[in-house]
């Protein structure tokens, strides 16, 4: 079975600052994918960034980047130059080859203060 753990129920950051959200996971799959999804109050989950486990290079999408430590099974999200619109729930998720669905963590609520 695959599991995802997000140990920070809530985080806050000052506008324009940088914040890192933590995620650890467990899987027996050799080939898997990791994701960060954002869920604003509208409830719609939006993909922020994804990482293929076989790639050593950390994924980057504009202000969002990940620190993928495969041996440690760690997948943290860094948000640079935080904006008010970044305030939302953030979910870490894993997709593994033998399962046709995503497994999510419990989420981290991020507040951005002006």
């Amino acid at each position: 079975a695959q599991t995802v753990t997000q140990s920070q129920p809530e985080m806050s950051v000052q506008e324009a600052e940088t914040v890192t959200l933590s995620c650890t996971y467990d899987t027996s799959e050799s080939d898997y994918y990791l994701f960060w999804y954002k869920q604003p109050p509208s409830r719609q989950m939006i993909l922020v960034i994804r990482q293929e486990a076989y790639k050593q290079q950390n994924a980057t999408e504009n202000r969002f980047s990940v620190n993928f430590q495969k041996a440690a099974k760690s997948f943290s999200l860094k948000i640079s130059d935080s904006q008010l619109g970044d305030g939302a729930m953030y979910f870490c998720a894993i997709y593994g080859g033998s399962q046709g669905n995503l497994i999510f963590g419990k989420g981290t609520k991020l507040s951005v203060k002006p």
Partner: protein
Amino acid sequence: GAGVSQTPSNKVTEKGKYVELRCDPISGHTALYWYRQSLGQGPEFLIYFQGTGAADDSGLPNDRFFAVRPEGSVSTLKIQRTERGDSAVYLCASSLIWTGGTGELFFGEGSRLTVL
């Protein structure tokens, strides 16, 4: 459509009643997923379809829950004899193909079910 559409947005029902939740995926997406999100939790997998057939229904909690996708497009999640513990947001997602490879699911805004 432009995105995944879910109806109703909110549903309040009484314990013991029957409920149907509808999902209209992005046109052309063959894979469709249902998740349940309880308050303060991450989405929990229920079932997913490849075309018309349920490829994996291992997440359905019991036989009161059932989902169909008769024409490979719109899907309906059906809950019989609702219980207060069924109260949650039910999220639907679709993807162009089975997620192997890209893994990106496109989500709707969910249906919030409240059982009194």
